């Protein structure tokens, strides 16, 4: 738990506390107001532009990903396969193999982006993520048990990861409960339980047959390999519901970022809202983890990059979702087609995340007085 060692990309991040750079306050920005019946939506002009460009980039990248692969297909074949004009292998390759993967990257990336946004604005800490309560190690343990001991199917694997993660989080919460849960105690108990599970995971991997151990480790790194359309459809359905709920809470979320007192003054029920946002964030991450293993760093990066692009003071959901989708898609493209041998997407996101932190250090931290 303590170090980003080998196969544990989340380790280390949970205990770090870092406050973001100064938030710029920007008055006098152009604002687009849409009025329809009683609903008025105020849209920031720059945000709208940025989101449109991001959406376009996501679409272009998705088409590119559909075109690329070791089986050579012409753009015409891809288009006709998508419109139902192809049968046989070409149809299978485009619609059954490539499309689910592209959609998975897109949807899961967006989910991770929103999850990170929810967490970061509740914790007001850009390095916050759901792994603080042992979810990651627990879901890995669940997955390892299914892969190595039960030899289970994809759905059992997803279930195992989910049960493992939730059971661990509950155990951490219960063990930390002693006339209420106090933050520091929660973290210490989380570290203790995570350390034990991490040892157990190492032990399970160590004792397993090499092929199975490598398959398990690939899951642990976060991989979209071999994902089927049924699996993506199920994951996307869960995520769609959660995203809808998240969009409905974006207003109290923005108020929460102004500080507890300010939010309370505006009529926000602070602790209830915070708990709700945390539950949403965990549920989104948990869905993605169950579907594809833990894809690291997107939930951390996407909201931050989104904020920088739109130059808004706080975290906004739409740019975070779009940046998340773009990052995940790009990382998977790099992992599949640019790396010398195909890699799990999570390996690329970990390295991208590290690179982003380095860039952050070199630019922003140095500018600080």
């Amino acid at each position, binding site marked *: 738990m303590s170090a980003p060692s080998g196969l544990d990309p989340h380790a280390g991040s949970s205990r770090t506390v870092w406050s973001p750079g100064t938030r710029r306050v920007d008055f006098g920005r152009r604002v687009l107001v849409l009025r329809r019946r009683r609903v008025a939506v105020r849209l920031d002009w720059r945000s709208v532009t940025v989101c449109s460009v991001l959406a376009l980039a996501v679409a272009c990248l998705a088409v590119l990903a559909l075109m690329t*692969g*070791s*089986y*050579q297909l012409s753009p015409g074949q891809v288009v006709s396969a998508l419109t139902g004009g192809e049968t*046989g*292998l070409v149809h*299978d*390759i485009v619609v*059954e*193999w490539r499309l689910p993967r592209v959609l998975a990257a897109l949807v899961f990336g967006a989910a991770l982006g929103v999850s990170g946004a929810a967490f970061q604005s509740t914790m007001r800490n850009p390095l916050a993520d759901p792994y603080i309560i042992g979810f990651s190690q627990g879901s890995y343990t669940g997955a390892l048990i299914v*892969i190595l001991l039960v*030899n*289970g*199917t*994809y759905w059992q694997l997803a279930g195992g990861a989910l049960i493992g993660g939730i059971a661990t989080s509950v155990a951490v919460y219960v063990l930390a409960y002693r006339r209420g849960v106090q933050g520091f105690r929660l973290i210490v108990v989380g570290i203790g339980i995570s350390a034990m599970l991490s040892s157990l995971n190492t032990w399970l991997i*160590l004792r397993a047959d*090499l*092929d*199975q151990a*490598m*398959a398990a480790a*690939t899951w642990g790194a976060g991989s979209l*390999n*071999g994902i089927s359309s049924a699996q993506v459809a199920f994951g996307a359905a869960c995520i769609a519901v959660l995203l809808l709920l998240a969009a409905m809470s974006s207003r109290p979320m923005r108020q929460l970022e102004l500080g507890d007192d300010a939010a309370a003054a505006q009529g926000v029920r602070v602790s209830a809202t915070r708990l709700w946002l945390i539950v949403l964030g965990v549920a989104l991450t948990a869905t993605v983890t169950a579907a594809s293993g833990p894809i690291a760093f997107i939930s951390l990066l996407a909201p931050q990059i989104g904020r920088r692009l739109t130059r808004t003071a706080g975290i906004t959901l739409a740019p975070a979702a779009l940046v998340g989708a773009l990052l995940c898609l790009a990382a998977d493209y790099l992992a599949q087609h640019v790396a010398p*041998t*195909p890699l799990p997407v999570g390996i690329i996101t970990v390295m991208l995340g590290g690179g982003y932190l380095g860039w952050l250090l070199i630019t922003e931290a140095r500018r600080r007085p």
Partner: protein
Amino acid sequence: MTTTPLRGRGAALTAAILSSALVLTACGSDGDSGDNAAGRSDETHTVKAGNGDIKVPAAPQRVVTIGNTDLPFIDMGGKPVGVTGVDESELSLLPEGQRATFEKATELGDEVDLEKVASLKPDLIMVQIPDAEFQKIEDQLGAIAPTVFWGLDTEWKALAEAIAEAGNLEDALDRQKADYEGRVAEMKQTYSDVIENTRFVNLDRYANSDPGTFVIADIGCVEIAQDDIGLNFPKAAAGADPLAYTSLPFEQIAELSEYDVITYPADAEGQPTEVFAPVVQTNTWKELSTVQSGNALGVFCPGNNSYGSVLRYLDSLDTALATLPAEQ
């Protein structure tokens, strides 16, 4: 007293197999000459595999091997167009020609790149991987070409038969089988006393073994020495799980003196393998009475899932057994 009839039966069996092999080989070569006719390639036959009865081409030309099917297929003279990853440590044990065949094939990666498989346009795909892994890619592979699959529990001889049947390599298999049976019968005769009176134990060490530990193993090549030759290695108690392997700390080396002969993994030159070397370097090993009396034998195991590699193992075992003090 049971040896004589056993040996008799073994010899009879060998003779029977040898003669049938000869007949089969003759038939096979007859078939071979007609094989090259272009018309034959459309013909199919049905083979039984772990995934059901599969219709495969009678003479497949472009075979992709996934998982453990690659080396047995190559060993019987097959030339796959695509193979999955094999560790360098395993590859380095192959005979020159087989390695060249392996390297000529397109590498599909450790996690199979399905599009690459499709782009090779195979007419047969042979798979031996864990069941759960196969379930994930079964439909996709089936869309590319007829796919035959066997689970990891398929015994190596049965796998060789199945691969030969699907891959149209039955004559090569029969030749190898005859060699093998002959070799086994010969060794049973030569070492009948050793088989009768000697208590063996087989040691090993794996790359993932904890430091400072070794294993007593009855899996790997030793299964052949145990089951086919009949050497007396420790077996799991009846009803218990197969022993497979027990991991023990180096302290336990001292306890090995209760066995008459120790076998341990060696390279082709008879030196202890790199992974096993730490055991041999301990003072406890050097002081062990079994070792000092020359009853510790390094045996080379180039693989235990195809007749060719098992035959090379038997050669090495034969050479090692011949050095036993009891045999000289």
